[in-house]
């Protein structure tokens, strides 16, 4: 196992180098000038000063080498647009917010989604199932921006239950965005749990357990649930990554100072260093997320461990 982990960690280095190279080359391919923010033309002397300041007048391979050197010394460079901040500053002040938001959303998804799926499976084709699946299907189909806007409209404006419309400071302000972001994964978990649980309920060992005369709670708690959760754990890893990194829309609607907005806005602003830095950050998250899932999976299902040593 240790050998596997070390090998996977070493593999991240060439993967990262490739990610940097591809992002670097792709950013070069799209037209646009990071220093022209409004319709105003940038006079030639000012453009030259800016190119010189940010080393954009160097040949591309020199810029690439400088950048790679920076990445491995954990210096992601200055932002070309937010002139008094470095990419490190941006990551330091905004990534924790996205991480926190993602964690709450994920928690909501698990705490609500799994019981919802269980109820649906245990009361299959009964009103409780229809009710639970209605919620889940709505959550699956309705986009997050609509969920967010409706939550704000009803809870913060119309009924005014004490939650603010936007911001990220008090605990009250964190409720609506966490629910809005967690709504889709919640629905996803509910459907997944329902499906796998229905399948597990028909397994021979469940029939055996029932035949032994175990109480229904024990059958469900011990045998059914444990075995149904394996696919859920497998799905959870990548989903957690997606929740942390994919919160651009929710952050914009709730005016949350997270990092998702920087990723999207830096591309349209041609803020090369921010786009590159955040791509690397996301690459690292995805690589480690997959690594963790692979390790967990090894524990849950020893067969996969055998296959790769």
């Amino acid at each position, binding site marked *: 196992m240790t050998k596997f982990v070390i090998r996977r960690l070493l593999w991240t280095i060439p993967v990262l180098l490739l990610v940097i190279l591809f992002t670097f080359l792709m950013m070069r391919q799209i037209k646009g000038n990071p220093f022209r923010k409004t*319709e105003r033309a940038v006079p030639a002397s000012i453009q030259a000063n800016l190119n010189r300041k940010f080393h954009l007048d160097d040949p591309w391979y020199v810029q690439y080498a400088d950048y790679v050197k920076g990445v491995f010394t954990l210096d992601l460079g200055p932002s070309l647009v937010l002139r008094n901040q470095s990419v490190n500053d941006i990551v330091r002040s905004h990534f924790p917010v996205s991480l926190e938001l993602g964690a709450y959303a994920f928690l909501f998804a698990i705490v609500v989604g799994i019981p919802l799926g269980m109820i649906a499976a245990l009361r299959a084709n009964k009103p409780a199932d229809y009710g639970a699946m209605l919620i889940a299907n709505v959550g699956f189909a309705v986009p997050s921006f609509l969920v967010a806007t409706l939550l704000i409209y009803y809870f913060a404006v119309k009924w005014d239950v004490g939650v603010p419309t936007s911001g990220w400071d008090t605990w009250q302000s964190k409720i609506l965005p966490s629910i809005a972001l967690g709504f889709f994964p919640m629905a996803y978990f509910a459907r997944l749990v329902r499906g796998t649980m229905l399948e597990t309920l028909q397994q021979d060992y469940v029939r055996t357990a029932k035949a032994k005369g175990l109480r229904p709670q024990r059958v469900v708690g011990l045998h059914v649930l444990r075995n149904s959760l394996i696919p859920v754990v497998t799905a959870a890893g990548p989903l957690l990554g997606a929740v942390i990194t994919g919160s651009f829309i929710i952050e914009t*609607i709730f005016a949350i100072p997270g990092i998702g907005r920087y990723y999207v806005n830096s591309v349209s602003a041609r803020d090369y260093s921010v786009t590159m830095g955040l791509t690397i950050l996301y690459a690292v998250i995805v690589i480690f997320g997959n690594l963790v899932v692979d390790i967990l999976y090894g524990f849950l299902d020893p067969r996969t461990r055998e296959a790769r040593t």
Partner: protein
Amino acid sequence: MRSMRTRTPFALALLVAVAALVAAGCGGGSSSDNNTGSAGSGKLAADQTITLAWGAEPPSLDPGLATDTTSSNVLLNIMDPLVKLDPKTLKPVPNLAESWDVNGANVTFHLRHDGKWTNGQPVTANDFVYSWLRTISPELGADYAYQFFGIKGASDYNSCDPKKSDCNALKAKVGISAPDKYTLKVQLVSPQPWFIQQVAHHSFLAVNRSAVEKWGEKWTQPGHIVTNGPFKLAVWKHDAEIDLAKWNGWRDAKDVKLTRVDGKIITDGTTAVQAFSAGEVDVNTTGIPPADLPRLKTEDTYQNYPALGTYYYGLNVKNVPLGERKALAFAIDRKEIIDNIAQADQVPATGFSPKGIPGFSTIDNTYLEPTADMAKAKELLAKTPNAKKHINLFVNDAPGHKEIAIAIQAAWKKLGIDVTLKQMEWAQFLEFLGPPPNKSVDAYRLGWIGDYVDDINFLELWTCKSGNNNTNYCNPKYDALIAKARATKDNGERQKVYAQAEDMLTGPNGDFPIIPIYWYTYVTQEAPSVKDSFNINLLDQFDLSKVKVVNG
């Protein structure tokens, strides 16, 4: 610049607008009780704190590096400009400079002696010499360095490459000096009657040398920043909050009523509107999405200010002949576009120089009309044998532009002209426009918002060498008029030249490189308690030192 583009990708903005419509439909558009009620008797409230929605995270609070409206408004309230502009007449009024002398190309500012930095140092003319040279310097890489190019030697110094030569000789030649502590002398390349007004722009603010040298690029952070205006930067949480607190050490602090401005950074219009109706902000400067305007316009809290800006369509004069350009201009119904699409009470533009610019009344604005004149358009087109029957129209993908383009597409279709809409993301769009524009561009939409209140700032766009002229239009007679205007010191006389120049663009015998659509407005929501004292001027600036909270 707020009204012209937002960073929110179009698709997202559209989705949010749809969602807002749904929400509004469900609730019947009820508004919160917090903001209703009359403007009140004008009695000062005990609590002089307001909350305000800023429209964006300021990319920089360095006067040399700031380029957007939010940065500009934060800076103008925490710093002390030499001059301010009278909100009504737009004439320069003394501020930190108590007076000035203009002698041809030589301008001398006399500074007040009681200006002070928050670190206790006095504000002197040397601060301005240091700050202006810093902004012009090639090392800083300031976007707005060109604001100083009217000063002798500034452009040469800015063009110097420190890698190749020693720039200090050029720096010494820049015409900015301080003969004594409170006298600032500026030598311009030519007499520029608008220079005093131009100095009201945030790029002409002073920075504190000791703070800049101590903290380097991080000098604008709260705790590091040293300011000299009525307010201090109390809190700056990136992308979340900018709070200002009254600074009692300011020279006229006794006249400042507000003790604190709690600012939330809200970029999304729908979110800002909801925060306002929930009573979480007293002033919404983020704006109102067009979908919400019809509903909110009727409320007392809706405010609308004229702006010094023009929304226009440019035409590639190499592709589209003159008669057709005129026909296209006459086919557009400006009033209908404003009433049904833009909806923020913009003013139909019958010329490029915006309403509100000094000398506007001398311009004959009667050739183009707010509404369409289809008969005339068809007549003009019939006389143009080489008219192009197929036009490529380029617009960027920020909210609202496509809808206007579709209306114009329909209007031009009535002339028998097919329009292909090319919608692009902002940075790519600008690459296509040039100048010179890509050959495929026949028509494009753009806006222009003035930096200072003189029509030269608008009309010089259409000179041959202008970097903002994306039309290929180049008429030596027009350039000669602009040169003449530059050389005319008397305001009244100069404005007459501007009227001639405007006539060459959009008058009966005009060249029509552009079609004006509307003049911008700024839209806000303001609680009754601050509604009377909160105002936005033509340049989208607001002066918080004049704001007071009254009991409703």
